[in-house]
């Protein structure tokens, strides 16, 4: 490989990363996150700026590594790439500080200039941006020389510092951390102090380093036994943690947990429709809305029905309503596949929202004013309005739904769904009743969402059409896709990340949908089976790794 192509690779990756970097700066991420301290004076904004150089270096080195193993080449390409990214950022800084672009680009403000220049004078800041970018790019390449085990340990240490620094305020705000701190007699500031951060880095790196030294058990049998034992231990631990969670984390986080739980419910329902039966439903929020409206109509004394039924009576009614609407939607779309189905269901979701908002149904369901005074559920005389109690109700609902999903997964109908997903014609030839299988998927998926909606209505006390936008459907779709379609642990993990994270990091909320969109695209391009894929799914989408997958299924 000659020098020219090395330079070209460097320029290419530098330009790509530079454009991405400029985009990220212009959407205001750096200045927003410049207010989020990680440890000491280090902010998330700085980390993002440093990351540009790192990515530029890694990308260039990867491109060169394909054809040339020489370190010199990699370093050269990385340096060029970093330089170009740095130059582009510096140019952006100079342009934004000299020309007023605010009329068009809303984030091109003095704040952005400040976030990019760290308070240095402009020329100094520009040089620093370039230098920093080159340095980080080269460091990124040289980091590859570190022995792999140490490399991974250090990386995990850095990740731990970033995560704990990011969530520091949330962590010290938990009830349990308050208890511990009172017990120890220490007070925590709002930011993880720098010595603490460095200490954390050291400890986590050391621990993960040492953990990797443990020799692996030799035979497959032993490994299998360990795995089974580990599974039970972790199950017990998780169960204990789940039970104690609301009282450990306090009121606010319990509320967040209930939201996560509701989305898990919906995710598991959509998982049946999309993940198992392969019917892409973009109007899933409709069933959530129907469940919520049914609950409010039947249980609120202020609704047009004015029945004021108790929660436990209204819940099955809501479930039945949602299931029936699932079937009603299912019948006309039975013959459609894939793409058409997505659009029709999207339209259906919008129709439900428009109808809920419209004047036509206003006398019955309140139009934009919604339905008020939905009472909270009672459990043997205890009112479950406190989110900490409500949490248990939702947890119970989730467990029931997880149980049903697990049983369905390996049942006759579950396998029928998977067959339908793979090839309808073949499935039918194998004697599967397509109509029954599809309607069943719609009905079960819808009823899960209906239960979620019903609990949501009881939690909120009042519901409005605005609670049921398309965004809810997209949220649910994202969490099952990012978690792993068809995979139950994937759905739960997805719910924790996608719903929990924006609650903790309020600034992220601004970028939430953008990140979802990017997440969907990247997942589809890089890892279509999701973060925690089901064994079967992985097998389908990764044929080259099929052998491993077969072994997994065989277990």
């Amino acid at each position, binding site marked *: 490989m000659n020098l020219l192509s090395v330079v070209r690779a460097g320029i290419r990756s530098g330009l790509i990363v530079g454009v991405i970097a400029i985009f990220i700066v212009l959407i205001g991420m750096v200045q927003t996150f410049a207010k989020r301290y990680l440890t000491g004076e280090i902010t998330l904004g700085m980390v993002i700026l440093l990351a540009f150089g790192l990515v530029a270096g890694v990308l260039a080195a990867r491109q060169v590594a394909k054809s040339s193993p020489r370190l010199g080449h990699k370093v050269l390409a990385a340096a060029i790439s970093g330089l170009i990214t740095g130059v582009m950022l510096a140019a952006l800084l100079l342009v934004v500080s000299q020309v007023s672009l605010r009329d068009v680009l809303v984030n091109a403000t003095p704040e952005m200039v400040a976030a990019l220049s760290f308070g240095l004078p402009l020329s100094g800041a520009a040089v620093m941006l370039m230098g920093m970018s080159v340095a980080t790019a080269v460091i990124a390449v040289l980091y590859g020389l570190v022995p792999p085990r140490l490399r991974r340990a250090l990386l995990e240490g850095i990740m731990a510092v970033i995560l704990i620094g990011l969530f520091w305020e949330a962590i010290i705000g938990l009830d349990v951390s308050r208890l511990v701190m009172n017990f120890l007699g220490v007070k925590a500031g709002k930011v993880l102090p720098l010595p603490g951060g460095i200490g954390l880095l050291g400890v986590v790196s050391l621990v993960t380093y040492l953990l990797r030294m443990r020799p692996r058990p030799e035979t497959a049998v032993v490994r299998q036994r360990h795995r089974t034992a580990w599974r039970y231990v972790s199950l017990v631990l998780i169960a204990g943690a789940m039970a104690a969670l609301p009282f450990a984390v306090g009121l606010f986080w319990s509320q967040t947990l209930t939201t996560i739980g509701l989305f898990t419910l919906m995710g598991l329902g959509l998982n049946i429709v999309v993940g198992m039966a392969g019917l*892409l439903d973009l109007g899933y929020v409709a069933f959530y809305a129907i469940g919520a409206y049914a609950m409010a109509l039947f249980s609120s004394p202020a609704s047009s029905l004015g029945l004021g039924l108790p929660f436990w009576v209204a819940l099955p009614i809501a479930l039945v309503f949602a299931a029936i609407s699932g079937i009603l939607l299912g019948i006309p779309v*039975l013959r459609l596949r894939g793409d058409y189905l997505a659009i029709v269901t999207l339209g259906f979701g919008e129709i439900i929202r428009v109808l809920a908002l419209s004047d036509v149904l206003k006398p019955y369901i309140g139009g934009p004013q919604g339905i008020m005074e939905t009472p909270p559920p009672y459990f043997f005389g205890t009112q479950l309005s406190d989110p900490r109690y409500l949490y248990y109700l939702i947890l119970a609902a989730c467990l029931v739904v997880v149980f049903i999903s697990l049983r369905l997964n390996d049942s006759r109908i579950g396998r029928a769904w998977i067959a339908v997903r793979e090839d309808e014609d073949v499935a039918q030839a194998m004697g599967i009743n397509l109509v029954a299988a599809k309607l069943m998927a719609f009905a079960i998926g819808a009823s899960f969402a209906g239960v979620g909606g019903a609990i949501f209505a009881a939690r909120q006390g009042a519901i409005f059409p605005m609670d049921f936008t398309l965004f809810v459907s997209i949220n649910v779709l994202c969490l099952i896709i990012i978690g792993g379609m068809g995979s139950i642990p994937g759905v739960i993990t997805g719910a924790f990340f996608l719903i929990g994270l924006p609650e903790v990091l309020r600034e992220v909320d601004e970028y939430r949908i953008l990140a979802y969109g*990017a997440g969907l695209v990247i997942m589809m391009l890089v890892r*279509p089976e999701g973060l925690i894929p089901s064994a079967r799914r992985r097998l389908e989408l990764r044929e080259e790794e099929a052998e491993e997958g077969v072994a997994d299924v065989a277990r």
Partner: protein
Amino acid sequence: MAVVSREARVSRAPAVKLSLNRIMLWVVGLGVTALVVWRIAGTAALGLYGPDVWLMQTLNGLVQGSMYALVALGYTMVYGILLMINFAHGEIFMIGAMSGYFVLNGFHQSGFLASNPVPALLITFIVGMGVPPIVGVLLERIAYRPLRRAPRLVPLICAIGASFFLQQAVRLLFGIRTKVYPTVAVLSGSWTITVGEREMRIQHMSVLIIVITIVLMVALYLLVRKTKIGKAMRAVAEDKEAAALMGIDVDQVIMVTFAIGAILAGAAGVMWGLWYKQVIHTVGFIPGIKAFTAAVLGGIGNIPGAMLGGLFLGFVEAIAPTALDISTQLKDVISFGLLVIVLIFRPSGILGEVLTGKKA
């Protein structure tokens, strides 16, 4: 000139065993038809509206339909070639509207619009039609091309993600504020004609929109029928492998298809801005779905079908609330309802050929 792949033209697979279901559907269909006829008869009997109202609504419907048709063409061409719904096409339309806004607003503030309205509008259209294809081609290159052989849900989900990404990127870059197109003095006038006993005004703008749409459609027709690249497009739609064997650069043809679709959507975006005045980052969503509906109405993959479907949908949307005497709030419900009905009873659309289950 149908851009429909050949395999898709095989006659319908033996009817799926859905007989009871079928009967139910027909009952529902007849019920809907009866209801519609009854409402129209009721409105007609009341005689509330004179011919001027109907003519006005028809004209509005044509204007709206022109925009739907232009966007629908992009859906239908991409579908014809790749058999995928380019979910982000509505966002491409929005980007056209946004780019047009920034240019026109710039001209407005500098006074160029007032002094030279015609060149200003021309440049607005050029930019509004020039930016979307860049985004469209990039989108195809980055998000769709690597997934061409993936299972069908994968590119669709990717497109949904891309749609949200583009929408939010525009929001974060250019702000959440609604952008108001400046008034163009030459276009804000109207002609007055007399219909029956009443006067009715025809806005210059509506005529301009319809004329531009016709010009673009004719241009597209000539491009697809008469040029080399049009021939290549038809060949690729017919059979990708065979086209590649004939020396056609399939990737390039697909890229051109995306670009043309985006140009048309961009033109529709600028028209939308000029007609409705307000644009915002979410402006592409509903028109996107409507245009898709229009493409399905006309028969997806079929270019004249998309033109016809768009005009038809615009017409129905403008006329139906008045004719059926229901609230215009329910306009969207009508078009989605129409989509569902068409998909159930004639999934191949008005001009579409009968597709096998695999394609439909």
